[in-house]
């Protein structure tokens, strides 16, 4: 029997991503790493790209970290299923998430098993997000979005959602917008109407990580070969290798949002004054300063670059910390130093 939770647990994180680039997979690894350090609990993962393989990839990453993550709901360590949008743009596959799915072990079986075979094995995003929120203490959840605002707009449209959000959500960190000269960023442009609604109606604070933050830091390829070598098969390292010709340094954007979301007081980034972000018809964003505004955006501080990079490489590559579970999760990945074959590249 699960005891009633009487002490406030660490911050709950809801991660909603389009899985558009390797950076998103690295952000997931960072969040699982921080979960392992008990700085937060990754309580829900959802995908805004209507692509089943993207959902399967996020599922295998979750299973890889199964001993460490605490996205359990109920008891017996059951995790919520992956939420998946069934409509929208960005339908196409990306090699960084399809190639790990094709990888097989020495026994010819998939290196990373998943129970997701069909859309029905994923969850409706509004329900899974709301259900995750219901299991959190008040004012103890941060939502990190890396992709279009489509999924959160659906959450907002659900009956009673604004009440839940006001009660449960501490902050929303949105990877998107642009707070310097330039065109509309890809995340807002992917669903302008949803972005408009999100910034206009979200009943709490929003911190944006604008497109000017994209690529100010790059992930060093050397870390992939060195820091992830503890596992003969690592779905994030495999994604990285599939994402470009090695050695390549992946530009980071979502990772900045994830780090800020969990460690907002560490001074990794500077912060704008408060104000209001509005989304224009062409997808560009406008920031209007105001003392009572609930929106801010992150500002890169070059002085913090090395410190941030150190956090990224150490935490994202950390070995999962086994947590005692009464019942093993189905298909939990057991890491064995077995020979693993890489898929042949076409």
């Amino acid at each position, binding site marked *: 029997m699960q005891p009633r939770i009487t002490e406030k647990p660490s911050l709950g994180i809801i991660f909603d991503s389009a899985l558009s680039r390797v950076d998103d997979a690295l952000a997931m690894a960072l969040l699982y790493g921080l979960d392992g350090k008990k700085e937060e609990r990754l309580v829900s993962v959802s995908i805004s790209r209507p692509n089943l393989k993207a959902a399967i990839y996020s599922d295998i990453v979750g299973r890889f970290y199964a001993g460490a993550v605490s996205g359990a709901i109920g008891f017996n360590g059951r995790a919520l299923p992956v939420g998946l949008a069934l409509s929208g743009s960005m339908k196409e596959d990306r090699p960084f998430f399809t190639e790990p799915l094709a990888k097989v072990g020495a026994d010819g079986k998939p290196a990373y098993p998943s129970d997701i075979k069909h859309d029905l094995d994923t*969850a*409706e995003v509004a329900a899974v997000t709301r259900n995750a929120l219901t299991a959190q203490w008040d004012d103890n959840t941060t939502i990190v979005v890396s992709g279009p605002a489509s999924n959160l707009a659906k959450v907002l449209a659900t009956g009673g959602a604004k009440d839940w959000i006001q009660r449960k959500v501490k902050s929303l960190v949105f990877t998107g917008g642009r707070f310097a000269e330039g065109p509309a960023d890809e995340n807002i442009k992917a669903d302008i109407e949803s972005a408009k609604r999100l910034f206009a109606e979200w009943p709490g604070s929003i911190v944006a990580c604008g497109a000017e933050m994209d690529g100010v830091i790059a992930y060093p390829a050397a870390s992939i070969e060195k820091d992830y070598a503890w596992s003969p098969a690592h779905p994030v390292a495999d994604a990285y290798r599939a994402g470009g010709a090695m050695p390549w340094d992946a530009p980071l954007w979502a990772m900045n949002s994830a780090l800020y979301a969990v460690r907002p007081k560490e001074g990794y980034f500077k912060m704008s004054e408060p104000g209001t972000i509005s989304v224009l018809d062409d997808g560009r964003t406008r920031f209007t300063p105001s003392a009572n505004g609930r929106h801010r955006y992150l500002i890169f501080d070059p002085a913090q670059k090395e410190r941030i990079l150190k956090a990224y490489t150490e935490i994202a590559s950390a070995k999962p910390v086994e947590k005692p579970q009464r019942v093993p999760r189905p298909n939990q990945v057991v890491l064995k130093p077995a020979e693993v074959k890489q898929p042949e590249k076409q």
Partner: protein
Amino acid sequence: MIVTQKALARRTFLRGMGLSVGLPLLDSMVPALSFGKTPETPVRMAFVYVPIGAIMEHWNPTYTGALGELPRILKPMEPFRKEMLLLGNLTHNGGRALLDGGGDHARATGGYLSGVQPKKTAEDSSYGDRSGGNTAAIKAGITADQVVANKIGGKTRFASLEVGLEDAQQAGNCDSGYSCSYTNNLAWKSATQPLPPILEPRALFERMFGDSAGLSPEARDRRDLYRRSILDFVVEDSKKLQTKVGPSDRRKLDQYLTSVREVEQRIQQNEKDSRQIDPGMEKPGGTPGNFAEHFKLMSDMITIAFQADLTRTVTFIVGREGSNRTYREIGVPEGHHNLTHHRNNPEMIERVAQINCYHMRTFAAWMEKMKAAKEADGTLLDNSMIVYGSGIADGNRHTHEDLPTMIVGKAGGFLKSGRRIVYRRETPICNLYLSMMEGMGVHEEHFGDATGHLSELTA
């Protein structure tokens, strides 16, 4: 059919000595010269709650789409394959612990029809006090049946009927600090007002056919003394009615009143049996000790209530959630709840499956009666939607997702039956209720934790 100039009112009652008996839909209730169109063929809705889920490997078919061979527990429903829907992956999130620890049974029932997580009323009794002293007021949510009852209940004698078989204790803690109000009530009129089920067959019979409070003490004594039928008191009205209707209606009326009389006789027999063999049981007088007979009596009265349009909304709680009832009549002397915590012991799993099958056989026998009851344009079952389900799926692990959920009946053509539909994971069961409300002519934007209507459900 004989067309009379003046139609009989749909809500005609046979009356006498403070008693009244509703009537089924008769041809004579069709307005003259309406060319066979009934003035109203109502859709009825019932929720039948079975406790502690099911052995899901014997519930879920391996296919979706048109219903074919049914798994073991559902076998008795094979004659109804074209009239039923099996729904997969529906979730009762309010049944989960969330932040409140133990109490899955209380949450399973207490929020099953509202989508709300009931409020814990005392410290978790599993760690100490089981005295039942409540420290907080009960709070759950208005249930789907009551939303419908509020909107259309005025059309019938009873806005809703709440029926049960096992326990109606309202005070004390029944599960890990949750009030017994949660485990023992399926219907809630508001967040703080549960509607306790009627457990005793006679109490239900008298509620339906006659307000015993309306009888003078002398009249009641006379009735009890001579064990006269309630129908004897309305005989004059009955005779008058026979002269106003055609031969087809006379036959229908005769069959209907016979079924009322049979229920009454079975109640009397059970009262006699209870007095003779089991006087010390903590049950209301006259309640059959045998599960199937009790179920049959209560479900027969629900059928009559639907036929006579006494109500269109029923909740029927077959067993208290977490019940440790034994089923010796099928060779299961162990408590149900204890067995469900089987820890994968095959013998215990088998016994739970036997209980699940027994419940289903009993339910299927009721559905046969619903199907046999003819209405102007089909059967009573055609014009009903009876949900059979539980707020727990796997009783061993207390899961609240992929709940065992079946709807029998076509709701007057509203439902596209004969299929198994599996929804996406985490789909709230309140989505089903929102859709069912539509079938009852009640349009709601939001309900409970619904995220919308269920797709593919309707014709």
